[in-house]
């Protein structure tokens, strides 16, 4: 476990922001922190980055409490982006890298590497203000990781990026994981969560209401639904509800809900007996989107 939170609580005057949050974030993974607006995500991230101190509870990095000496192992991209607008791209990034403990030479070396990698090497001497929003976001992203941190915390990392640049950032995130880093992403974009994340935690009103491995969670929310595509007509199948049944370009698509007593093979056999030619079968796990809504709604009730 690279990062573990133990019974972390935080109040702002009368408002409870976080309530005894326990969380284990494994190393070498991409972790998603989810939750509706005002759930306490930003507060939690600020506590992990030691911008706020918790009222109670502990935060441990590799078993040790956070201190100013191990703080540079974190890189943080806050949701509210901010840069010194009047500074040049290069000098700004070197300045921030130096504040994160790099020497001037190291900072310059890393600067060149990242500017080239994100394809903005020609902007090194431009004033930040003069760049487009997307390019500023790239600069901001470099500012987050220029000191090569072990834990990278990204709050809504894809906002403001076009699909091509979003893909660029996604690839960087995946590469970081490959290089043994831990990436924590807080986002409302469920498709990114589906695509990138290994572990998730769902925060609601300051409490952790769901956490664990993404696939395991999806399985646990499974409704035994299967999508079957093929040629032919499908009529009634025994012990099985057909939710959707329609034709598209001569291909019949069936969405079925199987009883727990049955297996998908039984259903397929029945279909084949009926003369249905099966082309495609896939279990339909609920989307993160659906799980998110379901969990929050049931919690609200």
């Amino acid at each position, binding site marked *: 476990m690279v990062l573990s939170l133990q019974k972390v609580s935080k109040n702002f005057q009368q408002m409870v922001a976080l309530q005894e949050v326990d969380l284990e974030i494994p190393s070498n993974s991409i972790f998603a922190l989810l939750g509706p607006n005002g759930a306490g995500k930003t507060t939690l991230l*600020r506590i992990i*980055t030691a*911008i706020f101190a918790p009222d109670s509870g502990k935060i441990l990095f590799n078993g040790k409490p956070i201190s*100013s000496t191990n*703080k*540079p192992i*974190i*890189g*943080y991209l*806050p949701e*509210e*982006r*901010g*840069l*010194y*607008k*009047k*500074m040049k791209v290069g000098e700004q990034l070197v*300045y*921030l890298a*130096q*504040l*994160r*403990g790099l020497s001037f030479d190291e900072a310059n070396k890393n600067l060149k590497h990242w500017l080239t990698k994100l394809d903005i090497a020609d902007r090194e001497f431009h004033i930040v203000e003069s760049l487009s929003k997307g390019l500023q976001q790239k600069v*901001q992203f470099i*500012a987050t990781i220029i000191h090569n941190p072990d834990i990278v915390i990204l709050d809504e990392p894809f906002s403001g990026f076009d699909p091509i640049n979003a893909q660029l950032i996604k690839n960087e995130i995946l590469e970081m994981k490959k290089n043994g880093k831990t990436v924590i992403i807080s986002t409302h974009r469920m498709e990114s969560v589906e695509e990138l994340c290994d572990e998730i935690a769902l925060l609601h009103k300051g409490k952790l209401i769901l956490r664990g491995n993404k696939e395991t969670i999806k399985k646990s929310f499974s409704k035994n639904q299967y999508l079957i595509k093929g040629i032919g007509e499908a009529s009634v199948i025994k012990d099985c509800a057909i939710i959707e049944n329609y034709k598209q370009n001569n291909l019949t698509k069936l969405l079925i809900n199987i009883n727990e007593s049955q297996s998908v093979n039984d259903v397929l056999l029945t279909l084949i007996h009926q003369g249905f030619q099966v082309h495609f079968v896939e279990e339909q796990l609920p989307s993160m989107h659906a799980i998110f809504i379901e969990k929050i709604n049931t919690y609200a009730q």
Partner: protein
Amino acid sequence: MLSNIYLILKREFSMKIRNKMFWMMALLGPFMLAAIMIVPVGLNMKSADHKIIEILDLNRLKKEEVNIHKYFTNTEEVSYVFMNGLPEDIKDIFLNKGTHDALMVTQAYPSTAAAQFYSKSSISQKLLEKTEASMLNYQKDVLLFKKANLTSDAIQDFNSRYAIKNIFVNNNAYQNVFESTASSIGLTAGILIYVFILLFGIQVMRGVMEEKSSRILEVMLISVKPFELMMGKILGIGLTSLLQFGMWVGISSSISYAIKSYFKLEMYSNQNIGNTLKFVNDSSQAMDINRLMTALGQINLPYILVIFLVFFILAYLLYSAMFAAIGAAVDSETDTQQFVLPITIPLLVAFLLAQNIINNPDGTMAFWLSMVPITSPIVMMLRLPFGVPVWQLIVSLSLLLGAFAAITYLSSKIFRIGILMYGKKVTLKELGKWMYY
């Protein structure tokens, strides 16, 4: 921690000196400084009180012969009183009992001995010249009256030989020059501290507000403590203020050096005084120079400059810590008013009381105001040229240092909470609460 403060300081400094405003201020500042110094002097000149000058004319002519009253006209500035009697008696009364400011005694024709001008209080150069010119005109007419067929050459001769001997009969004259010099030095130093506190304190405040609104702070706080951020900013801007001050002094002294050498006005060195005295046949001018030199000799300028810098730096640190806290607490410029005003009021009060303090630099009010940290930097500057006991300086500086430490501690607490607080209208009461978080 120190390396972070150093990095932040370095950035602040280099960004500030890259700014055009800095260089504009550096060039315009000396003119402002000159204005600051000239205006009080001008005010002093206007407010110079009414002088009464006694005239004792030993020619003792009748009104029908040459009417001396015609030559000396009373103005707002001066009244002339014509005396009668023995010179020794008149002089004795003037010196020992009289309340009049000056006495002029002319010798009777045909003596060409200098007229004697005794003054007890300082007589302005302008008034002195006016009185001398009147006396010369009168003497010339006396000469014409006595020797009706005088050639113009003889009149020329008279003009060149006739002189007025200027005599200061007690210390008051020196004292007045000393007082006006000391108070203008004190006022200038006080005004400089005031101007620099406001100018650069507000830059600290604006800087924090800018960083707050550009949302850079959260990016910074991942590796920097709020205290480091605040101190780096205050010290960086403070360094630019010292540089700015140095440039003001440098530029204004080069300007005054240029003016002096252009007009050959190098009268303030001892060697030149001697030379001046040799060449100036108008002894009153030489006396004036002498008076100024004596007065300046009583004021230890390098000492004042050192004390000034110490107070200047501490006052800046104290006030900019408060300004930093304000910048962190508010979201917009308009919200700053309610906090900036209470901070600047003590400084204004110090100035409103400046005249009283200068009149009585060792009085109770002057003493206490020069001890209380929020007013002490300015009030101490006003008192300093008149001489302040060392123990008072030490106590005042210790209190200022203590206040600086306390205010920085409280400000950094407000700063820490304020910088991540958005969209909240902050009141003074609220700020009070933040100090105890």
